[in-house]
């Protein structure tokens, strides 16, 4: 693939301007019913949109101070964040809040105007099941390797990973491994590309990639690419743009991205974009949303699509941000 953008044929052009506008427009859709039905995802949505903008090279397309105000308005005394003001605190929105603040270099504001890093760390650490090592999503106890990864992601960005029992959590992940090299939601559960991302990324953060059966997992992951170039999340399932992230980032972490066909996946993701009105959908011709938009763009970034900022395969944030925050 040519290394400069304007050498690409039209069907392989990323509609950057349209995508930026689409993401900017998301908060001005208050006359749409869906806007209100999705308030429980607002903070996550902000993280998805902001990450996409950073990768597209438009980090300032959303106003920084309003972003910080909104994030801090979602925080509870416990340190945890809800999805929007008035929503209960949850691991998922707390991780998004930390990722957003990290991306726009606003941890200082968390100290001065929010409840502070230490309180956020405490909230997350309290969600660890000290017997099994895994994490709950909130006080009501649902457990899932997604939450374990979220905890590792946010705590490592905050520099507070020592608040939790990392070894126990690592043992829990090892117990989620299956014969096919993949990982599930919990011990015994079927391998699933989304959970594989969470488990391999958590092991990477913990410095324990030695536990991953890279040959077997790489094979399974590479077999997710199906005719048409897209990736599915489990055997014999349909392809979906979001797996361009879950599968590809996992392959990247274990050094096997070259085991799939890069050009066909690029073309598939680009066929899912709405070039006029912006946004990316799960499959060609479907409705777009910010979730598929960020994971499509992050996938393109991993595939070194020209003009995109490099994405960190472990954190799903711009590499420049994680390098700075983690002091790499």
């Amino acid at each position, binding site marked *: 693939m040519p290394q400069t953008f304007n050498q690409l044929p039209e069907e392989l052009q990323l509609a950057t301007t349209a995508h930026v506008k689409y993401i900017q427009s*998301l*908060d001005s859709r208050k006359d749409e019913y869906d806007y*209100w*039905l*999705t308030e*429980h*995802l*607002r903070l*996550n*949505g902000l*993280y998805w*949109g*902001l990450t996409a903008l950073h990768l597209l090279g438009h980090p300032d397309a*959303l*106003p920084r101070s*309003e*972003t910080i*105000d*909104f994030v801090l308005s979602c*925080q509870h005394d416990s340190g*945890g964040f*809800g999805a929007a*003001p008035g929503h*209960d605190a949850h691991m*998922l929105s707390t991780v998004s809040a930390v990722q957003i603040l990290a991306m726009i270099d606003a941890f200082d504001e968390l100290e001065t105007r929010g409840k502070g890093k230490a309180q956020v760390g405490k909230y997350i650490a*309290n*969600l*660890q099941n000290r017997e099994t090592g895994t994490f*709950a999503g909130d*006080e*009501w*106890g*649902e*457990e899932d390797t997604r939450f374990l990864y979220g905890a590792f992601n946010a705590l490592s960005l905050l520099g507070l990973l020592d608040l939790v029992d990392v070894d126990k959590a690592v043992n829990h992940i090892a117990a989620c491994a299956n014969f096919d090299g993949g990982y599930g*939601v919990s011990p*015994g*559960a*079927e391998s699933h590309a*989304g959970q594989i991302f969470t488990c391999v990324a958590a092991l990477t953060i913990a410095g324990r990639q030695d536990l991953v059966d890279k040959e077997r997992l790489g*094979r399974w992951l590479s*077999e997710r690419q199906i005719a048409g170039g897209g990736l599915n999340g*489990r*055997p*014999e*399932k349909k392809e*979906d743009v979001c797996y361009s992230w879950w599968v590809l980032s996992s392959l990247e972490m274990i050094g*096997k991205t070259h*085991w*799939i*066909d890069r050009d066909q996946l690029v073309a598939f993701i680009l066929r899912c974009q709405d070039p006029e*009105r912006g946004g990316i*959908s*799960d499959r060609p*011709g*479907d409705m*777009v*949303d*910010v*979730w*598929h938009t960020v994971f499509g763009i992050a996938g393109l970034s991993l595939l070194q699509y020209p003009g995109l900022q490099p994405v960190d395969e472990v954190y799903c944030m711009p590499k420049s941000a994680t390098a700075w925050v983690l002091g790499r």
Partner: protein
Amino acid sequence: MADQGGSQHGIARTSRVRTDEQKKRDLERIARYRELEDQVRARAAEGDYSPAVFQLTSRLLRLNPEYYTIWNVRRRCLISGSFSRLSAGSSCSTACSTSSRTATTAPSSTSCSSSSSATTPPAPGPPTAGKSGTTAEPTPAAADPPEATESEPSEAETRDLATLQAELVFTIPLLLESPKCYWIWSYRLWLLQQAIARLRAPLARTVWEEELGLATKMLGKDRRNFHAWGYRRHVVARLESPSLRGGSMVEAEFAYTDRMIMSDLSNFSAWHSRSRLIPRLLAERGADEAARRAFLDKELQQIREALNVGPEDQSLWYYHQFLILNLVYPNKHPAMTPGFTLQDRVAYLRREIEEIKELLEDYADIQLIYEGLFEYTLYLCQLEGKKPKASERTDLVAWLGKLKQLDPMRRGRWADLEREHDLTEGGSDV
């Protein structure tokens, strides 16, 4: 983070231009929705978890089952005394019959909007009121579950049971409409935990037993739904546990995978489940060496027959790999046949390779067959502790050539394998 159910899946892209009439209708719906939402949130913020608020959560959750905070409000309504006060007939069982679907929206497939410029101040209400720390066992308003006796259920127990059952009924239509909504599944599991905490074991057991039926029903509608499979595993584990005075269900669950596989050979979720059940199944049967050998023979025969019909099906090959790994790495994977000698394992592997070669007579262009032959031949060399013989090497080179030709998408992997096993044509140290 993984999908939280708020993204668009499989909805056709249409023009985003709405008519004035549609816009007006949307505004009316928004107004109704927000009014309801404001009521629930305002009252919950004041610590009002009365039956009236509980009823409002029913209405709101039918419109939007993804609204996790409202599920939490509902839990608090039940816990804050309502568990024994809220009689089954008062609010829920009448308002939540399985046929009363009022929601016309599909909240599980709504778009996710980001909000960067929201300026709403934080709600003044208290933050989450629960205890810190995590446990899967919520603290019920009642103390310990009643001692197990043979007497009739107490009045409180009867009320709690009715409440729980009404709640379980309430979530069913929501689950049928949004079978991938994490929040509904986790709410349901929380209810089941409440049953253990509040009811004596025999009574709690009846509640949990019903759930197996639900898991079966949901898997009947979508046989790959991993929420339903996970739920099923969880329910079975609990039904087997001492807290519900259970016994092993491994035979029944294994038979369930049989049925699922019979109706769809391609259902990898069922094959996976089988792979997890087998070690326990054999142990609990007290299977001796002969029984284990017979079991493995039967599994291999079944999967070979399936491969004869669908050699392009990854699900079947993954399960075949599972059986082979048992032979190749008896210490790493739960061994089905720990008593096999090295000669046994080599003989089995040789036979499988020969059987797979026969598949080529009918299917010359299926890459998974070549991949199987390639992988298993290398295993054979590994077991025998030697490098491939000249004839084996010739085969490996030829199969890899076929893989490159039939499956160019994964050419990077074929190139790595070629290098790793020194299989470039011509150059070798045989």
